């Protein structure tokens, strides 16, 4: 049984009240950026927002990928997938290359552009609280039960159950089941997910595999390259020597 | 757009530089004549002999000599392509055509500096530019009629060099006569010192023929 925790957000139940938004700000001590949670957008001071897609509300936050792209690209390992599920960030390691921002398939990480010692900012699934056995602030705050916290396996089963029980309410797919290798944040909706602003052209394979395939070739390139270059050196050198000898021999004959 | 911007900036800098150089009366190396033929760089190998028709001779055995075109003609005309060589085994007289072909597309011929029997020809030089002037791209091996004649018609290396320098001056005069303003035609350099490589063959059939007459016949 995996210890991975996750979030299930059922957008059909979301009423757009903004409680999760406010709870997130309070827990993470983030400054206020907008009085209306529906008009805000992700930023270095906002880890989650509620978006209004023609009357359908949806949340945007880090998906806490099962095999996070951000963690795989970070050259110094400042981002890591914890055993509890959250993908967390260590600002003391970060060198600020922003590859994580470039690479994240959901375009989640934000940057403190105005700071002189900037940090990458994103939802960390209340890692401290989760470690202490609590649920995330947003799940706790949600009055409609749209965001729930729990064991990932159970949440997956729950999501599938909901679709099965009321197929007329749901679009028959749980976002996060397989997108980019799967995520710890699952989303249910009544419409296709691209209409809610989710990225739907992701491969099922975890993205880190795409670079892994290239990186795996390095040992081969290095060893084959060394042999090739060394061989070339020896061959061409020998050829030059022979040419020189021949030239000398000719000269002597003349 | 960024890509376009960067690419254009690069090009604009190059263009500005071109005009800056122009305003300073300098020429960007890309727009100089392909090579400059200056007299200090003419080379002639030590043990070779040189005839006045710009054919070099290298002694092989007593009366056999290897013959080829010298650097002066090759650089003055550039792009010399030989199409026909005197036939192997034939006897030729001094002044007979030894090689003929084109220089920059204009017909040209080179003449035997001395009489003799052609014992071997180098077909490798046919139909391509002469490049390795004093080695690979030799023309014929000639068994000369008389060893003594050689002394008359050919300079030794040291003298040959000095003589080529004087030919260089003669070439400048020649170009001035042929084209009233050789500088403007890009044949000679602004300071009047040097000649553009291949200057002769940049002109017409007529000029090449005149060059043949003035420089290659003796």
């Amino acid at each position: 049984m995996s210890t991975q925790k996750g979030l299930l957000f059922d957008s059909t139940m979301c009423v757009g009240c903004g409680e999760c938004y406010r709870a997130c700000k309070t827990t993470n001590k983030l400054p206020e950026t907008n009085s209306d949670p529906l008009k805000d957008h992700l930023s270095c001071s906002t880890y989650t927002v509620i978006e209004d897609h023609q009357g359908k509300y949806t949340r945007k936050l880090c998906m806490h990928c099962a095999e996070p792209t951000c963690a795989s690209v970070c050259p110094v390992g400042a981002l890591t997938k914890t055993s509890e599920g959250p993908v967390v960030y260590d600002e003391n390691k970060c060198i600020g290359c922003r590859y994580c921002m470039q690479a994240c398939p959901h375009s989640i990480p934000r940057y403190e552009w105005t700071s002189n010692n900037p940090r990458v900012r994103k939802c960390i699934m209340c890692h401290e609280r989760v470690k202490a056995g609590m649920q995330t602030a947003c799940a706790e705050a949600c009055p409609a039960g749209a965001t729930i916290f729990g064991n990932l396996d159970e949440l997956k089963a729950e999501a599938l159950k909901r679709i099965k029980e009321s197929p007329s309410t749901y679009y028959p797919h749980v976002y996060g089941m397989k997108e980019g290798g799967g995520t710890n944040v699952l989303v249910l909706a009544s419409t296709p997910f691209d209409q809610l602003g989710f990225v739907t052209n992701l491969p099922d394979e975890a993205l880190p595999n795409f670079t892994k395939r290239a990186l795996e070739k390095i040992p081969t390139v290095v060893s084959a390259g060394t042999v090739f270059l060394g061989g070339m050196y020896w061959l061409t050198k020998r050829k030059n020597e022979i040419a020189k000898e021949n030239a000398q021999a000719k000269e002597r004959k003349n | 757009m960024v890509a376009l911007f960067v690419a254009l900036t690069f090009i604009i800098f190059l263009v500005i530089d071109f005009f800056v150089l122009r305003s300073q009366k300098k020429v960007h190396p890309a727009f100089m004549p392909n090579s400059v033929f200056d007299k200090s760089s003419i080379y002639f190998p030590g043990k070779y002999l040189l005839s006045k028709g710009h054919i070099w001779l290298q002694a092989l055995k007593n009366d056999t000599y290897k013959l080829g075109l010298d650097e002066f003609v090759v650089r003055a005309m550039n792009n010399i392509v030989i199409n026909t060589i005197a036939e192997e085994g034939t006897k030729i007289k001094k002044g007979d055509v030894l090689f003929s072909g084109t220089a920059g597309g204009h017909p040209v011929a080179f003449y035997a500096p001395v009489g003799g029997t052609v014992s071997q020809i180098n077909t490798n030089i046919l139909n391509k530019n002469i490049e390795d002037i004093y080695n690979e791209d030799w023309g014929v091996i000639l068994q000369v009629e008389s060893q003594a004649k050689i002394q008359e018609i050919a300079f030794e290396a040291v003298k040959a060099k000095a003589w080529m320098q004087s030919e260089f001056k003669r070439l400048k005069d020649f170009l001035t006569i042929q084209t009233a303003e050789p500088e403007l035609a890009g044949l000679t350099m602004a300071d009047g010192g040097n000649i553009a490589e291949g200057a002769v063959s940049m002109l017409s059939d007529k000029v090449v023929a005149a060059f043949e007459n003035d420089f290659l016949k003796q």
Partner: protein
Amino acid sequence: MKAAFLRLTFWKVIAVAIITFGLYSTFLRFTQGLASVTNLSDSFPWGMWIGFDILCGVCLAAGGFLICAITHIFNIEEFKPLTRSAILTAFLGYVMVVFALLFDLGRPLNIWHALIMWNPHSVMFEVAWCVMLYSSVLFLEFSPVILERFQLTRLLKIVKRVSLPIMILGVLLSTLHQSSLGSLFLIVPAKMHPLWYSPLLPVYFYLSAIGTGFGMIIFESYLSARSFNKGLEMPLLSRIGLFAAIFVAAVFVIRFSDLALTGKLHYLLIPCQETYMFALEIVIGMIIPFAILIQKRNRQSRKWLYFGSVSLIVGALLNRLNVSITALNGFSKANYFPSVNEIAITMMLVVIGMIAFKYAVQYLPVFAEEEHTEVLDTNVVVENE
């Protein structure tokens, strides 16, 4: 000497202006953060500094490892006259790349973290190591010039003894990081325009770096001829031109077969900015230089060889910036365009590199190996520089 130094010329004025504004931007950058000088944003975190200073910079510095491979591994000794200046350019190029990185990194003081905090799954990690090692290798490759200048014969002997392994290491490291800069983008299959995204990106980056590197060797020789009154090694450069044409053709064939095999050719028919930029990149970076350089007559002409090399370089600039900026623009919808300060800092780095080159040539025997250069007419080019 002093008078010549003080005399104002057009380019000196421009250089001073660029450096002044660049220094001002540098001050802003390090006192008020990235937002004060760049147009980067959360939706467009990599801009011109990554796209031009790093991707193009590294690509254009490829000449260094190519010439080393030719002269020291393939033992084609005729090319030796080109070695030193190519290595010097590459070295200065990499130093500039590292400087640019210090500007771009949000926490530049942590740059050394890459040394001790390893994440071998990260392409960036690999690039960081290769660039760092390769810069040291380039320094070693160039060191004989410095040692010769100061007559440190003992050290010189040691360096010469290890020269073969160093050269091989240099070629390997270059192969790795030139291609890895392409691998950086493998991770964004869903964000990149399909005309550029391909699992073969590292291969394209590597092969095109080789083509461009050859173009750069030619271009540099013209720059040196222009500024230092030295001859052009035309016969050598025309052969290099042929090499470039071959590699450009190879990239062209692979890229188009890839597009055809993955069924992406129809994207070429969609009239949009990406398609135009792609077409421009292909025409300027591949078709034109190939058409010019494949003909012997053109390669032997000073003018055409120059145009060939310029179009190779422009093509490389277009390609690297298309991959890093144009191809991502559609997804991010950020319409990123660099700020004046970003441009100024970039230009400042380029200018400083050129000045460094100039002084290195003045005080070190960079062109010393060139006994065979044609003697150029001194009065035409120089003097009143």
